């Protein structure tokens, strides 16, 4: 009977989480929920931050095994800062994504981690890169991940536009996270959002009671 449950549940490894990133006119918003749970039954942390800074204007969200993701990000941060010193300039977003991709691909048999990398650089402006489980690297204008993401594919497909303003994009990301947290029991807490533009990175936290409400019965 188990094997015949909702097909959508069988999607491979995914952390109990919702992560997303979206580009707007002049920058990019990357965000996640803040819940850590054990076995989907106990919330071990209500306020964990899953958006990690790997350089001044480059941030990452992780999906998959937390241990693997943390190890990979630690190595990536080191590689990236070394690379930045060698090049005597800020690293490009694709450099950060490539470093992650290399680590994920070369160790694909041992690792189970995927990443969303978002940032701003002088050469190409705002960008988002997705490194999936096996080490594929692709660039997208908007992307979602984690177990809660299945519930918001329809919403994101319908509502996202590439030419939004900063406020519209922030509202879009907040709404998407709120909708996913409303349906996925292993996503929840507060919404952590980071807005990255030419002038820097700004951290926005929306507490649970300030999240938009949608027909909450």
């Amino acid at each position, binding site marked *: 009977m188990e094997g015949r449950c909702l097909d959508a549940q*069988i999607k491979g490894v995914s952390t109990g989480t919702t992560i997303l990133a979206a580009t707007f006119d002049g920058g990019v918003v990357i965000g996640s929920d803040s819940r850590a749970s054990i076995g989907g039954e106990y919330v071990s942390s209500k306020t964990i931050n899953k958006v990690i800074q790997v350089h001044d204007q480059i941030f990452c969200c992780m999906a998959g095994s937390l241990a693997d993701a943390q190890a990979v990000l630690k190595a990536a941060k080191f590689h990236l800062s070394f690379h930045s010193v060698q090049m005597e300039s800020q690293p490009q977003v694709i450099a950060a994504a490539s470093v992650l991709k290399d680590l994920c691909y070369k160790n694909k048999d041992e690792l189970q981690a995927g990443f969303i990398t978002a940032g701003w650089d002088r050469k190409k402006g705002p960008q988002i890169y997705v490194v999936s489980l096996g080490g594929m690297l692709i660039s997208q204008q908007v992307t979602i991940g984690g177990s809660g993401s299945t519930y918001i594919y*329809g919403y994101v497909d319908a509502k996202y536009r590439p030419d939004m303003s900063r406020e519209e994009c922030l509202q879009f990301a907040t709404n998407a996270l709120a*909708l996913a947290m409303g349906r996925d029991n292993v996503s929840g807490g507060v919404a952590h959002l980071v807005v990255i533009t030419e002038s820097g990175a700004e951290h926005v936290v929306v507490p649970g009671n300030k999240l938009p409400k949608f027909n909450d019965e």
Partner: protein
Amino acid sequence: MAAVASMFPMQQRVSAQNDLIPEWMREEVSTGTTIMAVEYDGGVVIGADSRTTTGAYIANRVTDKLTPIHERIFCCRSGSAADTQAIAEVVAYQLGFHSIELDEPPLVETAAHLFKASCYRYREELTAGILVAGWDRRRGGQVYCVPIGGMLVRQPVSVGGSGSTYIYGFMDSNYKPNMTKEQCLELTASALTLAMERDGSSGGVVRLASISESGVERRVILGNQLPKIVSTH
């Protein structure tokens, strides 16, 4: 965050025994699907995609998953095609008999309870997720959800099937209470289109029906007439 890596076993496709029988003939026929039902003041709107699959083969690309149970009561079927067809037939018979005994049109709630009775009694053997929707004089338009396992709950709007997970967010944000019939039809068509775009087991055409005191109106939206949702990929 604890290492919650929910491991779902990848379905290994190893063509073991008989390579002479193609894979799609060995798989069970399933209405992996997207179905939706919405109440409005005066009736209900129901909708479904039209794909029936056996594994990766689409056995029927123009399926009608909106099955009449009585004159103003329909059910939307998802799960195993055989199971849902069998249950619907049984319930239609029981309801028809009950209606003759009563000498008046049956209540939607009665139909829903009949579905629940069968789905719950045989819950170990069945894979059936059903939405029961219709109109009756006592309570107007109603939608009842009978998911796998045999629970019964009334909801103003409900989605079901494998494609439904992708549109929960869209439905939560776009549904408002007290919508008109046209708004409900538009919402259902958009939601089904979005789900069909993301779910491999849903596709084909969108079948819609609206049920009210005046009867049942059915329509079909063909693949090239689906509402245009600006694509993000």
